[in-house]
């Protein structure tokens, strides 16, 4: 009896969560895929009609904008947050006196919800209320900073707020990475008289590969599922200039009663995530097998 328990207990303990994941993740992915092939409007229908929803999706200029925005926002957000985070981490790594306090200050934005960040930045960037109005009140009457209300630039305000929110977190990740590099190697390099920037660029940063990868994965999925920040900061506007796939999907599913359209956009979002995550998983698994 005890032997039977010993062999089967782990499976029994894991079974509920396994079943939950099977149903609530893969089951619902399959359900969404099914619905995306139907003409569902207000309520889901189950007669398959082919790829009509995908045709409609790709014919929609609003979806074009949303996908373009995702790439602009995603690329800029990930790159800037990582560069800024790394820079901050390196500066903090110089054994300065008030490191604990500074680290907390930079990490604090992470403690705010995206809604708060978005609302605060909305006021800061509002031309009649925030930076532009302030600088003009100092006497620079021609100063203009109207990105928030300019459809060509509004997406960059979202990058700005998202970077502000997340770069402290990336900094903390990198700081942990910097500290985990073997002190002996660094000391050996210092003895050899190698300049500090060379130590960083040739020894420390290359040995932090896994940290870069985790930072990238965390930021990438933050970018793809970004929703609350857009809602709070621009509401998708001006017009639909700052729509992202997630806000498009929400509008279709909950405001317009077009569930088929929402399902097809959700499937495309999932494909985007897969194209990023699958190579990562593949390389991870291969590394373990080697």
């Amino acid at each position: 009896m005890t032997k039977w328990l010993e062999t089967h207990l782990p499976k029994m303990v894991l079974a509920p969560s396994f079943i939950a994941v099977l149903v609530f993740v893969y089951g619902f992915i399959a359900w969404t895929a099914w619905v995306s092939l139907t003409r569902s409007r207000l309520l889901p229908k189950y007669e398959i009609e082919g790829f009509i929803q995908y045709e409609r999706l790709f014919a929609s200029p609003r979806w074009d904008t949303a996908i373009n925005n995702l790439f602009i926002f995603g690329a800029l957000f990930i790159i800037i947050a990582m560069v800024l985070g790394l820079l901050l981490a390196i500066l903090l790594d110089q054994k300065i006196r008030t490191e604990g306090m500074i680290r907390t200050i930079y990490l604090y934005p992470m403690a705010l919800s995206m809604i708060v960040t978005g609302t605060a930045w909305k006021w800061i960037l509002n031309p009649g209320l925030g930076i532009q109005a302030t600088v003009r009140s100092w006497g620079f009457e021609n100063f203009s900073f109207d990105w928030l209300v300019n459809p060509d630039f509004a997406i960059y305000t979202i990058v700005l707020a998202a970077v502000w929110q997340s770069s402290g977190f990336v900094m903390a990740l990198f700081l942990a990475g910097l500290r985990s590099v073997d002190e002996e190697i660094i000391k050996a390099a210092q003895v050899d008289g190698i300049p500090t920037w060379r130590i960083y660029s040739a020894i420390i940063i290359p040995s932090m590969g896994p940290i870069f990868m985790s930072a990238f994965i965390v930021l990438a999925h933050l970018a793809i599922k970004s929703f609350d920040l857009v809602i709070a900061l621009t509401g998708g506007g001006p017009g639909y200039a700052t729509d992202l796939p997630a806000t498009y999907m929400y509008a279709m599913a909950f405001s317009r009663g077009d569930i088929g359209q929402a399902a097809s956009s959700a499937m495309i979002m999932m494909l985007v995530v897969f194209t990023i995550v699958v190579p990562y998983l593949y390389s991870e698994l291969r590394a373990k097998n080697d």
Partner: protein
Amino acid sequence: MKRTAFAAVSAFALMASNVAVAEPQAEVLHWWTSGGEAKSVAVLQEEFSSKGGTWTDMPVAGGGGDAAMTALRARVLSGNAPTAVQLKGPAIQEWYEEGVLADISAVADANGWADVLPESIASHMKCEGTWCAAPVNVHRIDWIWANASVLEANGITMPTTWDEFNAAADTLLAAGVIPLAHGGQAWQDATVFEAVALGVLGPDGFKKAFVDLDTDTLTSDGMVAVFDQMRKMRGYVDENFSGRDWNLATAMVMNGEAAFQIMGDWAKGEFLAAGKVPGEDFLCQSTPGDGFLYNVDSFAMFTVDGDDKKAGQDLLAELIVGQNFQKVFNLNKGSIPARIDVALDDFDSCAHTSSADMKASSEGGSLLPSYAHGMALRGAQAGAITDVVTAHFNSDMSSADAVQMLAEGVANSM
């Protein structure tokens, strides 16, 4: 275990007692949760209770009804629909097609609804000939509100054509006043757009374009002219308009920062709440052009099981269209009663104008549903039009391109 057993027994007891007396029961899903609206619903609730009914309130706030619709979807899918749901326009027909709406023709016929409701409004309340919803109020969309003293100071009268409006706006711009108070949210862009479209295309053109979705009208020169006028309107708006809420825009008119606002008659509630007097402090007039765009709130009746619930549904329908509720509710909300035989003595002058115009346009066939407020079209089509309107208003897109996109967007949304 004990507790569930107790709950089961008491639930059974409750059920048994209900069946015995068939006391009217109603569960009402709505999103009237803010000040004046909540007060208005409370009136209905009291009336319902005084007739011996039990009212279960199910307010779901948020997202202009989006949250309530999500809740409704979940309830219907689980086979447990509420008695009555705040729904309007084509959404009623959409739910009817899902086969979940009840027939309340008996109540409607007994109370003579057909005689007291304007025909085009009554048509929204019918599902294939049977009554399935009860109208609450009529909001007029095509209003232009103005600050009386700002107009006087600049020697301007209320415009009766769009050319007059443009001339007035140019004068105001030169005088350093913001001509048009506006909030850059998609539905507000759409509200201005449909007022302009009604004026430029005329009632017939408006009906062809936004009710029948006639491609020729959507791509006509008239539609190009509508977008041209929208481009002009963009110039009359201040630069901080993006994302502004409508009531803040109303406040700009109130304190003289801006001269005009184009908004439905819920804006009147803001003026009145601030102690302003219609005709003296602020002016109300229909936007240039003929016709009347309505937005009618209503309660759709869902299929429910049990005599007590059916009794509640019938009582509720009767009370909603009853004289008393129609009057009290609309006094609170700023709209006018849907039935035309309610005495308007307690209403203000704007409501009198609205009511007279509704009767006249109903007879003249120019009483039209608002597209921007979900009365004329289903969500997907109305959304496709709004996407183009707001994209055009917020960029430098040409009118010809906008018209092209409009036709493509509408075709793609089918």
